[in-house]
């Protein structure tokens, strides 16, 4: 018996035995599983960040998308303009429709959603005779707005119940810009006059806590951190506890990047959330997705949603040539709205997402 055969045998054994157990359980009504979280004793006292005397005053989040619109337009013009050019042709034949579909796919929208949009556009544009360019523009805008779904609630829940602080957990795969996002969200909250505390639960990546602390210091926000390699759940717990004790409004917890197919790391993330919730309920779980991400983004969203119940998406690095179409598929499949978009290198280049504005920027470039 080779190792592989042994592994397969193991799988079969597990399935057989688990299958039986599952059948038994299905027979009776199963109470919702309550897995007791292990009692968590923070191992390290948080080092407190020295607050620098010079503190920047960040810009308010209002009107940011407008300011960043030009940047968005720069990155996206080819999508909106390309679609308009195609649809404004005199005859809309198969080739044109295929090009439309290709353009959408080229924006990482995914094959399925792209086909849907094309089908809808087709019915609408075929039925109406004598279309002017303005009509096409309107129809296209409506369809694109439908695609990004304006009805979703995109407000950030940063308030906790009662005296408890609002807890925002930021998660995602490696290198999407989680720490930067935490820093930027902190600035927005500070600009709105809230008190904020950062929790550096990324204890894995080299210098991640330093990076976060630098962000915090710029706006005079403290960072609770543990040692490198310490338990992220304990850091998160400690951060929220400190936040609750001091009565801050919001605690932002940064976590280490993890690929969604690492079962152990995903379990760790689940633990961070469970343990943090011993102190205060997590009001918002933000999944950070890189706008350049392709179809893997959907898998990311699905797995993270399973583990920590993602409530919002932050789409970062949208100022490149990437179009972030993957969020369409994510919104569609998981019903999790895009709440924020990152559009540049600057500290204040993070804007609330608005479906109408977004599409307008796409088309009016």
């Amino acid at each position, binding site marked *: *018996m080779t*190792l*592989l*055969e*042994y*592994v397969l*045998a*193991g*799988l*079969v*054994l*597990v*399935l*057989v035995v*688990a*299958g*039986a*157990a*599952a*059948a*038994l*359980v299905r027979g*009776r009504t199963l109470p919702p599983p309550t897995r007791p979280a292990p009692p968590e004793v923070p191992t390290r006292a948080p080092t407190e960040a020295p607050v620098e005397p010079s503190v920047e005053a960040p810009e308010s989040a209002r009107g940011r998308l407008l300011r960043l619109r030009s940047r968005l337009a720069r990155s996206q013009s080819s999508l909106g303009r390309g679609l308009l050019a195609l649809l404004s042709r005199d005859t809309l034949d198969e080739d044109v429709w295929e090009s439309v579909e*290709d353009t959408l*796919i*080229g924006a*990482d929208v995914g*094959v399925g959603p792209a086909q849907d949009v094309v089908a809808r556009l087709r019915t609408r544009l075929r039925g109406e005779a004598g279309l002017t360019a303005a009509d096409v523009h309107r129809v296209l805008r409506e369809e694109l707005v439908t695609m990004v779904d304006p009805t979703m609630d995109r407000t950030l829940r940063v308030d906790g119940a009662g005296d408890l602080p609002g807890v925002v957990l930021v998660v995602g*795969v*490696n*290198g*999407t810009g989680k720490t*930067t996002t935490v*820093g930027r969200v902190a600035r927005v909250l500070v600009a709105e006059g809230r008190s904020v505390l950062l929790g550096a639960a990324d204890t*894995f*990546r*080299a*210098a*991640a806590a*330093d*990076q976060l602390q*630098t*962000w915090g210091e710029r706006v005079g926000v403290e960072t609770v951190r543990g040692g490198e390699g310490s338990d992220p759940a304990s850091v998160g717990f400690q951060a929220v506890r400190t936040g609750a004790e001091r009565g801050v409004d919001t605690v932002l917890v940064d976590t280490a990047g993890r*690929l969604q*197919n*690492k*079962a152990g790391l995903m379990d760790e993330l689940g633990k961070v959330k469970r343990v943090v919730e011993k102190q205060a309920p997590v009001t918002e779980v933000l999944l950070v997705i*890189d706008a*350049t*991400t*392709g*179809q*893997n*983004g959907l*898998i990311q969203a699905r797995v993270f949603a399973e583990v920590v119940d993602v409530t919002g998406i932050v789409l970062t*690095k949208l100022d*490149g*040539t*990437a179009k972030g*179409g993957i969020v369409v598929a994510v919104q569609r499949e998981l019903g999790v709205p895009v709440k924020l978009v990152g559009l540049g290198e600057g500290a204040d280049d993070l804007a609330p997402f608005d479906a109408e504005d977004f599409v307008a920027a796409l088309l009016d470039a």
Partner: protein
Amino acid sequence: MFDTLQDRLAATFKNLRGKGRLSEADIDATAREIRIALLEADVALPVVREFIASVKERARGAEVSAALNPAQQVVKIVNEELVAILGGETRRLRFAKKPPTVILLAGLQGSGKTTLAGKLGHWLKAQGRAPLLVAADLQRPNAVTQLQVVGDRAGVDVFAPEPGNGVGDPVEVARSSITHANRTLHDVVVVDTAGRLGIDAELMQQASDIRDAVSPDEILFVVDAMIGQDAVITAQSFLDGVGFDGVVLSKLDGDARGGAALSVAKVTGRPVMFASNGEQMGDFDVFHPDRMASRILGMGDMLTLIEQAEKSFDADQAARAAAKLTEGKGASFTLDDFLQQMQSVRKMGSLSKIFGMLPGMGEMKEQIAGIDEREIDRIEAIIHSMTPAERADPKIIDGSRRQRIARGSGVTVSQVNGLVDRFFQARTMMNQMAAGGGMPGLPGMPGMPGAGKRAKARQQAKKGRAKRGSGNPAKRAEEQQAARQRPPAAVSPFGNPDGAPTPPAPDDFELPKELRDLL
């Protein structure tokens, strides 16, 4: 929904069995399926178009093989084309005749440059070089600190004269690093630059200034395996902006199909030289095209499965337990062994993930998705609540023991009962299969409790067929030959660790056995 190209093709070809040749319509239908499969693997659209055209061309051509049926032919063609694009030439790093050799890393933000610098340093050191990492990313907060920590972990020296966080001139840092390396006798200099967007003219200018300052021997473009359609545009803009000689694919340990590798290689004509596949310093190796090809196609990744198994299973322990399964009607295979096996299997990832790696599992996907992993936790709990003696010989579990176990693990007595019964059944089944010589793929029963007896019968039928081989003499001969040629399981995720390319010669192209059965 079809997950893999195999599933897609299998569905397309369902009605084609027995046809000797592909008609024009068949080819078009196939091309559509391949197109979608490639797009879902994030291969860029222009590349897909070109690719499909050449596949169509070849499929239409006279390539009628006696040994392969149409579907197999198509998969063979697609696979060959992919490998051709990915691995036309695998080449190694060029080292300068006069040290130091300068390697410049460039890429988007978050593609993994700093981490890669450390891994590259680690790898170079293992090759007997004396690398120096240069912190020329002065943009991102604490990137310099990160590089220092990474260098520390890799045991490699770091040159970081500027504190970073927006302070200092990266071009100057890069320039002075060369003299520094000369003075300190480092023979390879790895320059980590800030992440930048292809459209950011200012930063691209800075990158090319750094390039001009150090005149690197190799410029490596670091790209995230998860990148989507944008890969082509980004790669092109970097090629125009700074130029690069090779591509490094990062985060390949994720489950992205990595079609970007294909797009970048095709569009820029630069080979993928390295791939990084994990969070540890050593998780970095020379890239291997053939595996990437089957990954893009979503063909079951048996090699990865084997590797993961090797990582999470203790080989000796597994061999002992396996022996127990086969000898003496499997009676010596205890619940302890089972527990161990189960835990090792779980270490490899979620069950659905593991099954995803097996080819030809399409039909069972639903059943697999129906498995609740918490059930397995419960099984573990039940076994943990048994005494060692009970685990060694579950037969001694009587009514009162059962009650104690149920109390201990928080389940009902009938659940304990069921577990023990199932265990005996499964053990007998395993034993029969093992005794029959090898596993006949996977049996069709999992997740269907109560089908034990029948499943067993079916299994044996299946096994018989597998042993007999194909009814077609030509195919059988090929199978036997393939079996003889099947190499001992390769270990590195990138094929041969020594980096020698292994392009599959067209003659001994070997379809996964399961696919052959399927079609």
